[in-house]
C-alpha cells in the first residue's frame, strides 16, 4: 500500500530489504482477456434466450433451473479472468493470493450458512 515501499527506482538496490519482484503484464495478454470477456458476454446474453431446462434434485423437493446456473458459471469465469489477469493475482505473492481466496471462502461460507438456515426452516409451520 505505502508508496515508499514498492517500486522506487527499480535500478536501485535495496540493501538488506528483499527486492520486490514486480511482474509487468503485457498488453497482448490484456487484449486477449478483453476479447475473451466480450465473447463470454455475448455467450451469456445468447444463453439467456434459450430455455436450458431444469432438473429435479432427487426427492428433496427442489428443482434446479439451468439458466441461472449457466449465467452464474459464465459470470464466475469472467470474474476469474479479471481477477487473475487484470488484477494481476496470477503474478502476485502468495500472501495476496491467500487474502483473495480467503475472502471468497468467507463470502461463500456466509451465503452457504444463510441458505442452509433458509432451506431448513419449517416455514409457516410454527
Amino acid at each position, binding site marked *: *500500500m*505505502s*508508496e515508499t515501499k*514498492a*517500486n*522506487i*527506482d*527499480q535500478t536501485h538496490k535495496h540493501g538488506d530489504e528483499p527486492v520486490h519482484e*514486480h511482474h*509487468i*503484464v*503485457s*498488453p497482448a495478454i*490484456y*487484449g486477449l*482477456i*478483453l476479447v475473451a*470477456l*466480450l465473447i463470454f*458476454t455475448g455467450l*451469456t*446474453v445468447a444463453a*439467456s*434466450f*434459450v*430455455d*436450458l431446462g431444469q432438473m429435479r434434485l432427487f426427492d428433496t423437493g427442489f428443482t434446479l433451473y439451468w*439458466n*441461472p446456473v449457466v*449465467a*452464474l458459471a*459464465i*459470470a464466475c469465469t*469472467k*470474474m476469474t479472468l*479479471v*481477477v487473475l*489477469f*487484470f*488484477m*494481476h493475482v496470477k503474478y502476485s505473492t502468495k500472501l*495476496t493470493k491467500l*487474502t*483473495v481466496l480467503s*475472502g*471468497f471462502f*468467507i*463470502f461463500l461460507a*456466509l*451465503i452457504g450458512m*444463510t*441458505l442452509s438456515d*433458509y432451506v431448513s426452516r419449517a416455514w409457516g409451520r410454527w
Partner: protein
Amino acid sequence: MWLFLLTEVMFFGGLFMAYLLMRNWYYPAFVEASHQLNIGWGTANTAVLIISSFTMAMSVYSAEMRRRGALVMFLVLTFILGLAFLGIKSIEYHEKWEKFHIPGIRYSTSAFTNPQSDPEVYKEYHDKPLPPDMASKTELYFFLYFAMTGMHALHMIIGIAILGFMIYKAKNGAYTTGHVTFVENFGLYWHFVDIIWIFLFPLLYLISRY
C-alpha cells in the same frame, strides 16, 4: 487495497443475498419485473465497462513503462467510458421514472396486474397477469434493482472523480517515475467495480428471459 475490496465484497454480498432470497420467495414477481429491463442497454453497458477495465489495465501498464502520454490517454479513455456507462444507466433510470417503476416514490403495478397495458414488453414475453398481492412484490424487485445498481453507480462516480484527479496528476508527471502504486490500487478498485457489474448483469437482466 485487497482488504478494502474484501469488505466491499461483504457489503455487496448482503445485497446479493437479499436478492437471492426475495427472488425465491416472490419468483413470479421477479420474473415479470425483470422483463421490464432492456437487455440491449444492459449488454452495451457490460461491454463499455469491460472495455474500460481494459483501458485501466493499460493505464497501469503505461505507468509501469513510464510513458506519460500513454498513461494520460488511457486514463482519459477510462474516464470517458465510465461516463458513458453512467449515461446509459441514466437513460435506463429515466425509463423507469416514465413507466412508474420507482419504488416508494413513483410506482404503479399496472404493468404487472395487466401486462397488456405495456404492449412493448407484452409482445415479447406474453406475461400472465399477476394477482395484486404478487404484483405488489415487483416493487421489491425494483427496490433491489435500484439499491444494487445505484450502489454500483455510486462506486463508479467515486471512481470517475478519482480518475479526474489522477489525470491531472499524471499530466504533471506523477506515476511515471516508478511510483505506480496509486494507479495500481485504483486499477484494483476499478476492476472490482467491473466484477460487481459482471454479476449484476446476469442476475438482474438475464436469468428470466426465455
